[in-house]
Each structure stands twice: as C-alpha cells, then as structure tokens.
C-alpha cells in the first residue's frame, strides 16, 4: 500500500546519504542493517558514548571519523569506508573488539554502503507530527455536496455518497423492514428481535417508526451488555490471572468491572469520563468504597506474568495505548520506536506512572444502605482470615516449639545423637525439642560431612574435637577459619566471620554462634516473605546477597530444617479435635469469600506515597537502569520534560491527557471502533493501530467529522451510535450488486451494508432467545460453564478463565483474554459444527424450541413448522421451506432408530439360533448394564432369561438355544479378518460340577455363515479363524449357547480380531473383546423429528448471519 505514512529524508547532506525511494530498501535497512549496528556498535558509538569520537546511530555522523582520519562511510564504496574496514578485521582498529561479526552481518553492511548507505528518518521524530493524518488535530470538515441530493438523510450519508459518486457508484436501496429490525436489534443489544417486535415493525409504516425503534433499543438494559462486551475485548477482561505458579489465580471480583462497564454504557457515561475513571477513578473519586473504583479493573485485571512488574506495567501501558490511542508503544520498551515517534524516554516516562503501584481489593458500595453491610463484610473477612492464620501459627509453635530460635540447641542435639530422650506421641521430647526437627538437623549434618563445605565445615571440624583437646586445638582452628585464605577450601565469609574474635571454648559456643547466624538469616528472609505476602506479590526466591543466600539455601532448602514441608503439614499433626477446629476455621474463610451475598469488590491500584523517579531501562532490562526521565505524557501528544506530571504518580494527569478534547487520537479511535461494530469494518482497518504504518482511513473526512461530533456532543456514545444507525448508509441492503462489486470488491466505499456473522455471545444468546429459555438477569458473579453447561444467562456472564477457557469459547473465536484484542478473528472450523451438532446445550435449545412452537396445543406439522420458523428466524416459512420441512418430519419419523453413535463396534444381545438354518433368527440388544455386565433386565437372574449375561472376559448363556448370549462385532471397514481366542468352561476339570454339560461356542459371519463351532466342557478351546473377508458393516457374531441345560455354564471367552483393510496392509486394526468391553455411551433421549428440525433451524446460516 502506497499510503504508508513514513517519511524518509537524507540527512547530513542529501547528496551523501540517499533518501529512501523504495520500500524494499527501507525493509533491508530495518531488517538487516539497523539491528547489526544497534546490537554491536551503538553501545560504544551511540547517543550515550562516543568512543574515539565516533558515533553510528545517526546518519549525520557517518561522514566524520572523529579523529579526522576520513569518513566512516563513503556511500557507494565499501572498500573506502572505514566502518567496513573495521568490521572486516583487515586492519586496525578491528571492530567490534569482542569478536568478528558473522559473515552475513558484514555482507549486509557492505551491501548497504554499496547502495549509497540510505538511512530512513521519520520526519515525525523531528516533531512535525502533523504530517500523519492521525496525529493532526481533529477539525470539523465541511460536509460535501452530492448530486443525488434526495438520497442522504444525514451528514454521514453525504460523506459516503460523495465518495461513491466520485467513483460513479450508487448506494444500495434501504433494506426491508424485517432485515432492518434484525440488524439493528443484534447491533444494539446482541439479541434477536422477538417475532412480535418483527411483526409490529413490519406493520408500522409510519416515517418515525425506525427512530422510535432505535431509541427503544438504546434505552434497553441489553444495550449496555452488548457494548460492554465489545469494550471487554479491548480491556482483555478475564475472571482469572491465567496460568501461574501462584495458587491464587482467580479474580473473584472481576465481575464488578464488567458490571460497571455495562452500567456505564447504559447510563451513557461520557466517553472521556469513561476513560478517566478506568485509569484513575481512585484519584478522581477520592471517596472510599466508591462504585466507580470498579473501573480500575481496566488496568488491574490483566495477566500477572509470575509477578514481574515490568511485564505487568507493559501490559497496562499496552491496554491503555492500543486501546484508547491506537498506538503500540511496547516497542519503545527496549529502543526508540522504529516507525512511530515514540522514544524509549517516552515509554519510561509513562512506566514511572505505574512503577511501585500495588493492587488490592476494596469493597465497593453502591448506596448508603449497602455501605454498612459492605464494611461489616470486609471487617469480618479480615477477622476470619486472621483467626485461621493465627491458629496455624499457634499450632505450629505448639507442636514444634519455637524451633527457629533454637538452632543452637538443635545443632547440639543432632550432633550428639546417641541415647536420645524418648519423645511423646506427637514427637515432642522432654528437652523441649521436637524429634522431627532434630532429624532434619541430623540430615543436614550428614549431608555436610566434608571439609569442603562452605558453611558447615568449621562445625564439623569443631565437632570432631574430643572434649579434652578442645581447649588446645580450638584456637588454631578458629584462626584458620577466620583467615579464610585456603583457596582450595573457601568458606562463606559470614561463617568465617563467626570465628574472628575469641576462639570458642566448647562446642556449645560454636553452636551458639551458628545459631545467631542462622537467626539473622531467618529474620531477614521471613521479613521479605511477609512483605511480599502483605503486598500480594509473588514471594521472593532468593536473597540478594549471594553470601546470605548460600546460608538460606542450607537451612531453607528442600528437606532442610526450616523447610516447613519437610517437618510435615501441621494439620496432619493435629489430634481430631484440633483438626476439626482447623477445618472449621479454614471453611469459615472460604464460605465467607464465596458467599453470594458478599458485596462486590474493586481491584484497585494503590500508588506509592513517594513515587521513585522514573528511569530508562537500557535495552528494556530492569537491571540496567539508565538516565532519569520525568513522568509525563507522550511527547508526540504534547508531553514534554518541561511539563511533567506533578500530582503524585501522575496517573490522574495521564488519564486527563488522554481524555482531553484536543487529543487527536482519543475520539478518532473510539468513533472508528463504534463504526466498525456497526458497519462490519472500521473506517481505519486497524482499530488499535493508528500509527504511521497503519493504512489510511477509507473516509478520512467522515472519520474526523464523527470524532468532532463526538466531542461536540459531550462525548456521548449513545448519540454517536444513534447518528450512525439513523443514516441511510447503515440502513442499506446487504444484497450483492455485480456492477459495484466489480468496482469495489471489498465494499470499502460502502455501496452496501456488510453482512455480519454473529460472534460467540450473540449466537449463543440468540439460541436461548429462540428456545424461550433466555434468562435476562443483569450483572453479578460469573457462572462457571463447567458447573452449569446449560446455563441460561447471557454469554457475557459466563466465567472467563484465562487458564481454562471453555473449549467452545476458543472454537468460536472468543477474544483471547491474554492480550488486548483489536478485532475478533472470524474462523470456520469443524469444532464449531461439532459443538452445534452434538453438544448438550444446543440440543436443549432445540427441544425447548420444538416445545415452544407447539404453543401448548397439539398442532399439525404445517402449523408447527410455521411457528418454529417464526420463533427461530422471525419469519414465516416460504412454500418451499414448509414443504421441505413437512417432508423432513415424515422422513425422520420413518427412519429406523438405530441408536446414537457410530462407535458401537461391539454390541451385546440375546440371539435366537436356528439350528436348521444355521443362522441367527434375531438379535435383541441387552438393555441393562449393571455390575460390569450386560444383562436382560434390572433383576439378575432374570425370570425369562435366567443368568444370561456378557462380561468383559466371558459371560453366561440363557436357558436354551433361543436365548444364546451373543457378542456382536461390526466390521468398521472392508478387509481381511483374523480371529484368535480362547474359550473355557469350568477349569480345573477335577473341580467341575458333574451336572454341567458344557456350552457351545459359535463364530458366525452374516455373509459366510459358520466360521467356527466347538462344544466346550471342562476345558479350554482355541477359537481361531484364519483370514476371512469382511465388508464394512458386516456382523461377526460370537454366540454362546447351552447344551441340554444351562446349570454351571459360566464361561470365559476372549477374542482378539485383527482387520487388515483392503489395499492398506500396514494399517492393521485390532479389536479385543475384553479391552473394548464397556457399558453404554452416555445418551440423552433421542431428538424427536420436530426437535431435529428445530436444531437445523438453529444451525442454519440464516440464523448465524445478519444481513
């Protein structure tokens, strides 16, 4: 596209460094050259440092060499360019000094110089941002004049028509009333119109009828639900944090943000306020527990990236800037933005606004009467959590004693070992120590029994001294350890320090010194953990100081003395009474959080009292902080170092800077989103990217006119929507017209309406509407679809769990809640069809729709079909529709019910064996599956059929040959079949009851007759059939029947079948009667013919697409 709005300039003398003419040169530079320079050169020869006076990050420096030795780059002549000489390592200096560049990088630099060393420069970066359409101030353009002046009814129509006329195209006629009401109802509420509404609108031909309809829909509660969902895509909304090692992944009160958004659209909260509250409601309201605090969910409900602050802030900046400004500023996290005038300083100026802010849940109150309740709730929750935590701590202390402060005693006890005092039942010893902990110290000492251990080797050395030699040998030992100069055996410096003063007089003193050291580390570490817990951050994984952390690892590592898990879960050490208390306290917390009457909470941000100055992170790495930048807005949009944020974190100022009337992006981005939802495509094709690389708007003047009107109308979203849907442009038919299509195939000029496909939510909601089951309750806690698969609430209210999104959400292109999603994908995959064909939800709607169409009366097929069509599609069936439907009902009711599912390769039944005809006269499926066996009825034995049953490994025949036990196999494809098996009856034979006269085993092919026959009595028989051809669907029956009587005729018969499909010898399939044995597939009652037809209506394209 030629509209790429990047400007190139040759600096440092246009004669030297060629400006870009072609975009492939541009790509070459950006992909091949700039990365090499950035990675290998800029560090020493860039903005920060200019070693040797050489600077490579801007073209104007390339002509110099700093030391006067000639130009670094001679455009067109690589061999004369000192840059190339240096990287080729041909001559001194060799650059980069760390090692020669890879060949391809050198080649790229050479090629680039050869081409004249072109260097792209965005003019915008120099501050002339007005060149890009999106950055220019919004001005009201004049409304164009048109020839067909009778067509437009609003200004919008004039903008559209003018462009059409310029291309000699004409708009489409207005859609018929049924189409129109269906379109506008879905667009404004996400639901279909009822059949009564359709009828009334079709009848009402008054000129104002459509306007009245629009106003009714804008006033409905469902309007907010539909439009809030659009916004939730922007806000990457979810009810959980997503995959995380942290157990606390749910956002239990995320729904308050969702409900706030619904309400904001319904009350038509001005869009500027809508944004300000989502970024800084806490600064604006300054009232505790204000309901608007829920708006902060926009910032706080993102993923948590294992607690990494830079990533969390990046996610927040992304959602703000792509969401409201159409700018991706994420690139500037590591380097100046390549295309847009956004610098790394800009990024960190904004980063500073969020740095150090903490999240917390705050109860919100919607009215004075809830206030007391909410505050009481919060207090109670705190109290319950505190009780539980205190109980755990107390119990731990009671069981183990305060072992954290008794390291010296434990060390001594573990070292001395030997005749240990007897512990009581809980493991407590008379000396007050706990045996479990002593054991852990023992393990520690055993594992460190080496003279090389950096922490414990002094202990081991002192402990090895005999008491009588301690006095004489301790001194030199202590001196050696204190000196710590043995390179072979270095000590942890803190341990060496233990022995710097006087030498210990006995081992107990050594223990005391170690105990003190351990206590220091313990205090430090547990403080860090407690801080993290208080702030709801991820816990730290190590201490900053390597020296300290080495000791921490020793005492806290897995299986170490202070590893609480190693000492055992405290609740497992409680007696039953205390255990009950534990469970009660734990439950009290859980019950209180899950209590449906719990007030909603807002996930809010708490700015630090004294925000630290913002710093650039070099290359995006927090461990490389660079220069300080004042917190401020994007320089592109008027922010400057001279004009920094002054109010605390600056978050409120940021919000207001975004919501300013003269911000050129805010209104443009929003009207484009609204336009996109209504017309099927935005005027700008990239709703979240208005940067210099974005495609130009199809109707730039219209975009500005809409943006201007939005602000002039007090940022009213409802008035904006109303304006658009009242235009004739919006009301056009979507019908194809070959002539304009040839001219404008993508319908960019809007010569017709775009046909829209229902997204997941309106599709599911429309099914509930058609079935009459829809529950229109607004707001509240989300419903987990795993608990309630057939939930009748609107889809908006189903829980969105990042880590476990319901599979049909993904299948139907739900917006990935991990990212800000500019627009949904629209895919067509078979998983969608499987959900619609086989899923229980759709079946329930089909059943309800079929029932609803009967309207409580016995109806003939024709009447029923008419009523079903009206309920599902809002129209009467055509003659063709009706005739086909009636024919379908007739055909469906004559179709033999063969039971669901193609999986029944094995079937289990009662066979009537005809001895004369050598064939089965009948096969009656066994109807009951109980106790791992198929049987004839719920009673066993059964009056008529005796002990007849089939089990995985065998079974029992019925009382006579008309009641044989038949295991039936259905060939899944044509092929060559081999059967192996082993049948047995009463083994060992000596123990067999003499009354048993044995059974008979038959293998019978429906096509080829008897394949195998043998009587089996008190023995094992191989039942082998070699190589018999079968055709797809053919039955192979494994029949067992009694001889004269069926007493003691339990049998075992396992068979394996091997089927080699015709022509595909390698694709042998095997079937094992025992392994494949199972009960019935879960079934629901079969759909009646009418229910099947109702399902078809819910599945058809007319239901899913909106003209």
């Amino acid at each position, binding site marked *: *596209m030629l509209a790429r709005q990047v400007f190139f300039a040759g600096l440092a003398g246009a004669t030297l460094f060629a400006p870009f003419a072609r975009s492939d040169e541009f790509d070459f530079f950006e992909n091949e050259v700039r*990365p090499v320079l950035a990675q290998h050169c800029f560090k020493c020869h860039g903005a920060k440092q200019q070693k040797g006076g050489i600077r490579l990050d801007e073209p104007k420096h390339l002509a110099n060499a700093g030391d006067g030795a000639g130009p670094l780059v001679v455009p067109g002549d690589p061999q004369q360019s000192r840059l190339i000489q240096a990287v080729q390592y041909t001559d001194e200096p060799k650059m980069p000094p760390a090692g020669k560049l*890879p060949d*391809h990088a050198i080649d790229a630099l050479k090629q680039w110089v050869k081409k004249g060393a072109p260097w792209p420069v965005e003019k915008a970066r120099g501050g002339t941002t007005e060149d890009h359409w999106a950055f220019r101030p919004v001005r009201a353009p004049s409304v164009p004049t048109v020839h067909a002046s009778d067509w437009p009814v609003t200004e919008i129509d004039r903008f559209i028509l003018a462009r059409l006329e310029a291309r000699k195209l004409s708009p489409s006629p207005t859609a018929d009333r049924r189409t129109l009401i269906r379109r506008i109802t879905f667009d404004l509420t996400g639901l279909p119109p009822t059949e009564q509404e359709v009828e009334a609108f079709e009848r009402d031909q008054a000129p104002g009828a459509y306007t009245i309809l629009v106003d009714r829909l804008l006033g409905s509660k469902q309007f907010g639900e539909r439009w809030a969902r659009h916004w939730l895509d922007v806000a990457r909304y979810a009810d959980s944090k997503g*995959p995380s*090692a942290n157990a606390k992944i749910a956002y239990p009160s995320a729904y308050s943000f969702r409900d706030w958004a619904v309400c904001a659209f319904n009350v038509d909260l001005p869009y500027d306020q809508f944004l300000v509250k989502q970024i800084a409601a806490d600064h604006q309201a300054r009232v505790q527990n204000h309901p608007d605090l829920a708006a902060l969910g926009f910032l706080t409900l993102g993923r948590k990236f294992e607690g990494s602050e830079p990533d969390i802030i990046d996610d927040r900046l992304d959602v703000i800037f*792509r969401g409201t400004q159409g700018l991706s500023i994420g690139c500037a996290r590591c380097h100046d933005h390549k295309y847009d005038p956004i610098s790394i300083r800009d990024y960190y100026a904004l980063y500073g606004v969020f740095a150090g802010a903490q999240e917390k849940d705050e109860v919100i109150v919607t009215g004075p009467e809830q206030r007391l309740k909410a505050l009481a709730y919060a207090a109670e929750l705190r109290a319950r959590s505190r009780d539980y935590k205190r109980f755990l701590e107390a119990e731990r202390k009671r069981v183990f004693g305060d072992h954290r402060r008794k390291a010296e005693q434990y060390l001594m006890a573990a070292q001395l070992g030997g005749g240990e005092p007897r512990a009581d039942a809980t493991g407590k010893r008379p000396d007050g120590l706990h045996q479990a902990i002593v054991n852990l110290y023992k393990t520690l000492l*055993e594992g460190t029994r080496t003279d090389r*251990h*950096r922490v414990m080797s002094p202990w081991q050395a002192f402990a090895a001294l005999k008491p009588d030699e301690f006095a004489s040998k301790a001194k030199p030992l202590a001196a050696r350890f204190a000196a710590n100069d043995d390179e072979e055996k270095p000590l942890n410096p803190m341990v060496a320090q233990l022995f710097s003063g006087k030498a210990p007089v006995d081992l107990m003193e050594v223990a005391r010194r170690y105990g003190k050291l351990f206590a220091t580390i313990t205090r430090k570490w547990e403080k860090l953990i407690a801080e993290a817990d208080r702030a709801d951050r991820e816990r730290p994984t190590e201490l900053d100081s390597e020296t300290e952390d*080495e000791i921490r690892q020793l005492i806290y590592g897995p*299986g170490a003395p202070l590893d609480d898990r190693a000492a055992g879960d405290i609740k497992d050490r409680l007696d039953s009474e205390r255990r009950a208390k534990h469970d009660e306290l734990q439950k009290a917390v859980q019950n209180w959080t899950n209590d449906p009457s719990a007030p909603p909470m807002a996930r809010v941000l708490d700015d630090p009292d004294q925000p630290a100055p913002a710093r650039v992170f070099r290359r995006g790495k927090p461990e490389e902080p660079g220069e300080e930048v004042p917190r401020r807005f994007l320089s592109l949009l008027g922010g400057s170092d001279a004009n920094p944020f002054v109010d605390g974190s600056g978050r409120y100022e940021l919000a207001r800077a975004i919501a300013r009337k003269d911000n050129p992006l805010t209104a443009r981005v929003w009207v484009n989103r609204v336009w996109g939802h209504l017309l099927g*495509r935005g005027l700008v*094709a990239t709703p979240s*990217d208005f*940067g210099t690389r*974005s495609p130009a708007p199809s109707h730039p003047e219209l975009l500005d006119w809409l943006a201007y009107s939005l602000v002039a109308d007090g940022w009213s979203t409802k008035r904006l929507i109303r304006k658009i849907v009242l235009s004739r442009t919006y009301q056009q038919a979507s*019908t194809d017209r070959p002539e304009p299509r040839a001219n404008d195939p993508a319908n960019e000029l809007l010569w017709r309406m775009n*046909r829209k*496909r229902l997204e997941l939510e309106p599709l599911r909601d429309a099914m509930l509407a058609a079935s009459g089951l829809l529950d229109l309750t607004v707001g509240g806690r989300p419903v987990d679809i795993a608990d309630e698969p057939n939930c009748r609430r609107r889809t908006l209210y189903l829980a969105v769990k990042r*880590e476990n999104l319901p599979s049909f959400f*993904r299948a139907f*292109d739900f917006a*990935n809640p*991990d990212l800000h999603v*500019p*627009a949904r*994908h629209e*895919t*067509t*995959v*078979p*998983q969608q*069809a*499987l959900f619609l*064909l086989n899923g229980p939800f759709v079946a329930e709607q089909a059943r309800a729709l079929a029932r609803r169409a009967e309207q409580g009366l016995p109806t003939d097929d024709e009447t029923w079909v008419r009523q079903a069509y009206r309920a599902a599609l809002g129209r009467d069936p055509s003659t*063709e*529709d009706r005739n*086909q439907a009636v024919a*379908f009902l007739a*055909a*469906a009711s004559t*179709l033999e019910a063969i039971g*669901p*599912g*193609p999986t029944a390769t094995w079937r289990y039944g009662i066979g009537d064996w005809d001895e004369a005809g050598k064939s089965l006269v009948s096969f009656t499926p066994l109807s009951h599956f109980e106790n791992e066996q198929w049987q004839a009825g719920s009673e066993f034995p059964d009056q008529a059929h005796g002990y007849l049953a089939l089990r995985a490994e065998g079974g029992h025949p019925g009382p006579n040959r008309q009641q044989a036990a038949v295991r039936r196999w259905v060939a899944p494809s044509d092929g060559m079949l081999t059967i192996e098996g082993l049948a047995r009856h009463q083994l060992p034979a000596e123990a067999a009851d003499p009354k048993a006269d044995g059974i008979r085993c038959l293998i019978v092919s429906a096509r080829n007759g008897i394949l195998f026959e043998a009587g089996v009595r008190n023995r094992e028989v191989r039942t082998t059939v070699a190589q018999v051809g079968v055709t797809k669907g053919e039955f192979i029956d494994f029949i067992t029947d009694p001889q004269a009587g069926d007493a003691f005729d339990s049998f075992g018969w396992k068979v394996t079948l091997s089927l080699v499909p015709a022509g595909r010898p390698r*694709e042998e*399939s*095997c*079937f*094992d009667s025992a392994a494949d044995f*199972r009960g019935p*597939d879960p079934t*629901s009652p*079969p759909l009646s013919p009418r229910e*099947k037809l109702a399902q*078809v*209506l819910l*599945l058809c*394209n007319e239901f899913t697409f909106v003209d």
Partner: protein
Amino acid sequence: MRRKRYPSIATGQFNRRDWLASAGAGFGGLALAAILADRGKAGDGPTPKQSDPRSTHFAPKVKHVIHVFLEGGPSHVDLFDPKPELSRNDGKPIPVPGENRKAPAFGSPFRFARRGQSGLEISDALPLLGDLADDLCVIRSMHSDEAAHETAMLLMNCGNARLARPSVGSWITYGLGREDQNLPEFVVLYDGKPPVKGVENWQAAFLPATCQATAVDTQHRDVSRLLENIHSPFAAAAEQRLQLDLLNDLNRRHAAQRTDDPRLEARIKSFELAYRMQTEATDAFDIAREAVRVRELYGDTPVGRQCLMARRLIERGVRFVQVYNPGWDHHDTLADNLRVQAKGLDRALAGLLTDLKRRDLLAETLVVIGGEFGRTPVADGIFISKKLGRGHNNRGFTTILAGGGVKGGYAHGKTDEFGFQAVEGKVHVHDLHATILQLLGLDHERLTYRYAGRDFRLTDVHGNIVKEILA
C-alpha cells in the same frame, strides 16, 4: 455413508453432492477462503506482499513434525553429550574460571558407548535408542536465553519468553494449512496435567484461532472423552445425515441470494467435515486399535501411548504433533531417577522411530526430541546423602532430530569439555526454529504475519538455518 434422502420438493433438484461439486475448490480452498475472509476483517493478517502463505517457499523435505518435549530439562551430559573430563574431576571444584566453584563436578553415573555404524556416543540410559544411533542427528550445541522453566518453555515453543506469540505448530499450521480434512492439523498430547504454562505453549496468539493446537489429555483412554462432542448422544449418523441434507437445502436457498459471500459456503462445508470427523477422528485417536505387538513396541507407558497416538495422527495427515513428557527436572537423585525416567522414553522413541521406518513414514517426518534446556555439569541440591542432581543450564544442551532432511548418525556442534556451554557450531533456539521451518519448505524470514502494525515472524529478527545438519 449416504442414506436415502427425504423426498426433495425443491424445484432446484439440489442435493448435497451438487452443492459440494458446485463449491469447486474443494476443501483445500475452504481453509484458504476462511483465512482470506479473516484477513480482511481486522486489517491485521498476512503481509500483503506475501501472495499465498500456503504454498511453500522451497521444496519441503518433510510433511510432518512430531515434537517430543522432554519437560524439565533433560541432562545432556548424562544422555547425549559424553564428558570424560567431567568424570575425571568428579567431586572436585571445576577448574573453569567464571563457573560455579561452590559446587563440585558431578561425573555422569552413566556410561557412554559408541553405537551404530556411525559410532555416535549415547549413554546406557538409552540402550534401545542407541541401537538407532545411525538415524539420529544430535545437536550438542544448543543454547537458550532462559534458565527458568516458564520462560524457557515459551521461548522453545513460541520463540519468545514472555509475550504472547504464536507457537511453532501454529506458524506451521498457518503456513502450510491442513493436509488431512478429517482431523485438526496441530495436536498436542499431554498426560493428566498440562505442562508448565499450559495452553500458552501451543497458543495461536494473534494468528487465526484455527492455528491453535487441539490439546488432548491422553490420560483418558476413551475416545469420547479425548475429543469433546465427537459423538452425538442424541442421533445416529443416518439421522444426522437427514438433518444435514435439510440444513444444506436451507443454506443453499439462503446462499442463492448471496452468491458473493464465501463464508456461507465455508460454514456449510465445516458441517460436512465435522460429520466425517465423528468417525475418522475416533479411529485416529484410538490406540486400542493397534495390534498388541505394535503397542508393545512403544511400551505401555504414557509417553509410549502418546508416541503411538502421534504416529496414528501423522499417518492420517496431521501436520504437527507435540508430545509432552514431563519429569526431567532432576535437581537430586539423578542417578536413579534419570534411569527410570529414561527407560520409558527409550522404549517409546525407539518404538516410534522403528515403526515410522517400517511404514515408510520416517522419510517424510521430522522427529524432534528435547527439552527447554539442559543441566549443569556441577552437582546441585543440598548434598543430602550424596543424592546428587544437576541445576538448570541454558548455555549448552542437546536436542535430537531424526527423520527426513537431516543427517543420521551425526553429531553437530560441541559444548566445552565439561558441558557448561556450547562453544562450537552454536545453535540458538531461533536457529532450531528456522531449521524446522526450512525442512518443511518454509522460509522463516518470509513466513510473516502482520499484527499491531508490524510484521511478525516465528524467529523475530533472529534465526540462522543450521545448514550442517541438513542431509
């Protein structure tokens, strides 16, 4: 399959077969049409200059990939990368400046031997795989930027350690589309518990949702639990056929007024595909249908069953199957635990390679075996009772390739004499990705997708083909 239709009253005498015939392009066109329709929607999408992402850039060497992901970081110095110098220094601090001197060297408790014609050295933890040494291309010089499981997994799977980026399988699916029309083209198999980072490992991110893997928990043996909604609990196939015929008639009349909209047709076809999947997919995922001797070849372990399922899937045209084999994070007790862990894998992999060869599938399949990183040559853990293990090591580790397009019996690159870091023929994760795409006929620099105003690649701005390993 097709049963008697209800009598058609439609004057157009239209039936399903006519409809499918009239669609012309067949199902291959469907996916493309869906992508094209998708492309127009958000403005994001394939880079305009790229005419058709679904034709390969070069002649492909392989058609399928099976990636056996050894989750946790298997120890290269105990499996694939022998280090005699490490054994000689066992128990002593390692005399390498800059390396961890606090922990002693840990000589491998496993013995290495030259195996096969090629004499490739493989440890005795993997005896059966060792028999197939001549089929293996061992990259001993892998390195990665990330030493934590979470980030290293994402880097290995998606080419980026932190941000939401499409997975390798998604890129391949996007680039090549589907070969088989009855099954999803990208399948992930895990047993019981998804790997660390879960679905992020096979995310489509900004690519169309169809490019995301279908993830299947193989702890279910019952196919109807492996694949949701794959069976109808209400209706027999014949009854659904009748419904679909009526549905097609309705849709045909609806589309007759809207002939210019390819989405309508795409949706009609998706129902037909789903209808067929009900039988085909059931079979594909059902390893109980394999002969006992084949199942024994792979071993009755989770990874054995998964590898067998992977073979059934690629045999039926699935592009990319990823098998997750967890449990390689041996911080302690490595000598015992690694041996047990390797045993199941050894059988599964040897079974897989043998079976693929027997079926002439190995030449058109790339098998990738490896974890997110390797392990340290020095000992890890708290040294309790000498139950030693190893720490994470992202600076040097081994990944194995086998199958079409790569050299067999070949070892590429080297780590230093202890196995700390790759020093010769270094292969970064991005390079591995570039090479996998290359083998599939895709140029990693040209397989791009425009999102948020930028052209994205699997390899970002990195990646060099590892030419030395190509056959």
